[in-house]
């Protein structure tokens, strides 16, 4: 099973993406989706050797819902900063966030979350994958921003990934 | 009401494109210009989708998807060029 489907999640995502693209569940699109979902992970296997171990797929769904909600809140905050705050009162800061996550996929997920949510943006990662450099649009207290990222997102990701 | 809201949204994104053109002309650095072009692509995607809703055709979603893909790849290629002086390594 693992030799045919090296990345089950990628296969499922490709299957779903093809069905969305074809716009229906006719027999021919189902067949094409199955072929693509089998062949593409096999062809790209050499470039993605590791297998992320996801312990709780349901928690991943609730994590995505949390991030989507935070994206909406973040947008309102950033819009208020852009519209109403004078440009010379915005205190931007570079913040180092140490991360302790087991696999590159989890770190990529955390980096993407940081970029999409409240006024923060992932700019770089350290050479040993143990820290992220983020830029905050308006952070009067950089330590609080760092602690919030660690407790709100990283702790949840640690529980999802082994 | 729907027609008015649609016209309002299209006007917003058209105005956003004009602001982007202004920024493109006055941008101080190279990454700024790439960022502006990226924003223009996103605004144009929204315009295409809204026009599709106005014309009540589903074809516009395909065009929006294609533009999203080429826009993303060209942004990354531009950045790669700035970082290394070459696109393909």
């Amino acid at each position, binding site marked *: 099973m693992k030799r045919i489907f090296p990345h089950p999640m990628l296969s499922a995502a490709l299957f779903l*993406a093809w069905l*969305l693209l074809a716009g229906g569940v006719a027999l021919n699109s189902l067949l094409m989706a199955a072929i693509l979902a089998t062949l593409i992970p096999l062809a790209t296997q050499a470039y993605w050797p590791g297998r992320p171990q996801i312990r709780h797929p349901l928690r991943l769904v609730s994590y995505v819902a949390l991030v989507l909600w935070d*994206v909406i809140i*973040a*947008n309102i905050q*950033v*819009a208020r900063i*852009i*519209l109403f705050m004078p*440009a010379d009162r*915005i205190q*931007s800061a*570079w913040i*180092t966030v*140490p991360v302790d996550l087991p696999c590159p996929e989890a770190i990529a997920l955390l980096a993407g979350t940081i*970029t*999409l949510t409240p006024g923060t*943006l992932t*700019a*770089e*990662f*350290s*050479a040993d994958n*143990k*820290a992220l*450099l983020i*830029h905050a649009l308006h952070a009067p207290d950089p330590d609080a921003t760092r602690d919030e990222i660690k407790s709100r997102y990283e702790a949840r990701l640690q529980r999802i990934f082994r | *009401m*729907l027609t008015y809201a*649609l016209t*309002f*949204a299209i*006007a*917003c*994104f058209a*105005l*956003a494109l004009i*602001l*982007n053109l*202004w920024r493109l002309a006055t941008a101080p650095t*190279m*990454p700024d210009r*790439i*960022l502006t072009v*990226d*924003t223009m692509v996103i*605004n144009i995607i*929204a315009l295409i*989708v809204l026009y599709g*809703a106005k014309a*009540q055709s589903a074809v516009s*979603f395909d065009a*929006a*998807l294609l533009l*999203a*893909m080429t826009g993303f790849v060209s*942004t990354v290629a531009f*950045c790669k060029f*700035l*970082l290394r002086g070459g696109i393909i390594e």
Partner: protein
Amino acid sequence: MSLGVEILISALLVIGGCFGLIGSFGLLKLRGAMQRLHAPTKATTVGVGASLIAAALATYMATGVANWQGVLVAAFLFLTAPLSGLMLAKAHRHLDRPTVPPTGTGAPWAGERPVKP
């Protein structure tokens, strides 16, 4: 089309248009290249997302055919926004060399040469 759905679609369209405009306005107003990077990666994501949902709903209401490609466009935009943001930040750091805090782990930031002792 019922009144409730029409109000929902109109609200989404107005919200989307406002956020798209705010994103582009932020691009003009904010000072410093890194600050400007924040405006479009966020405001336009929700702006385009709300517009996509509204357009898909409006097309469904008008023609009766469910259109799921809008979901694909929105998902693609949400997946690629962090990547282009990361690449632009890398390009900015490569050209302007702002001073950034150390990693705290002993290793340098990726893309930097290790500091000689």
